[in-house]
């Protein structure tokens, strides 16, 4: 499974894409794993306005990651 970090999250972590094999069981388990490695990133992932997209669909709440290929963490968006 791939994890992607966008915007300021990628700068904070010092990476923008990483593979996790095997995939953590759930989104909460993935966040706990990332927070365990890097508590600054962990706090940012739970910060205001940060959304998660699982296989390019925004997910609210918990989800199992067993059959998932990509999880992306998205800070507040701004185009235009």
């Amino acid at each position, binding site marked *: 499974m791939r994890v*992607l970090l*966008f*915007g*300021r999250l990628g*700068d904070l972590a010092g990476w923008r894409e990483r593979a996790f094999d095997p995939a953590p069981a759930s989104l909460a388990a993935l966040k706990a794993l990332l927070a365990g490695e890097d508590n600054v990133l962990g706090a940012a992932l739970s910060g205001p*306005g940060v959304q998660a*997209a699982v296989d*390019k669909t925004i997910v609210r709440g918990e989800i199992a990651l067993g059959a998932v290929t990509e999880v*992306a963490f*998205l*800070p*507040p*968006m*701004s*185009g*235009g």
Partner: protein
Amino acid sequence: MIRLSTEPFEPGAELTAFCAGRTESGAVASFVGIARADAGQTTALELEAYPGFTEVEIGRMAEAATARFALHDVLIVHRHGPIAPGEPIVLVATAAAHRREAFEACDYLMDYLKSRAPFWKKEHGPAGARWVEPTARDLDDIARWD
């Protein structure tokens, strides 16, 4: 049509092509967003997109606008990657039977792009780089349509 581009685009040529052959759309409205220099405080912009997701989400916004304002057509061209001051970042063009719908849809789409389109924007300047997030005004602007 939704198009993301890492290359500069020419808004006039895009608009000419968008208007061509229309015999039923009495109105085309357009907006061009341009990267500001902010009196030297911004030397470059960098827009990050999420390929495969950004286009789909903007497509959903365009569909919502089409239904809400009875549009005949929508064109959105959006840059990503490095952008120099003075270069167009975004073009929105809307075609409708009459002007009011075309104007309003253009305004609505820009408000959505500003605070809900999946882009992340970094401003580079003499004082360093910073990520730009939607401002209070951007959030007030989008709330007008809820």
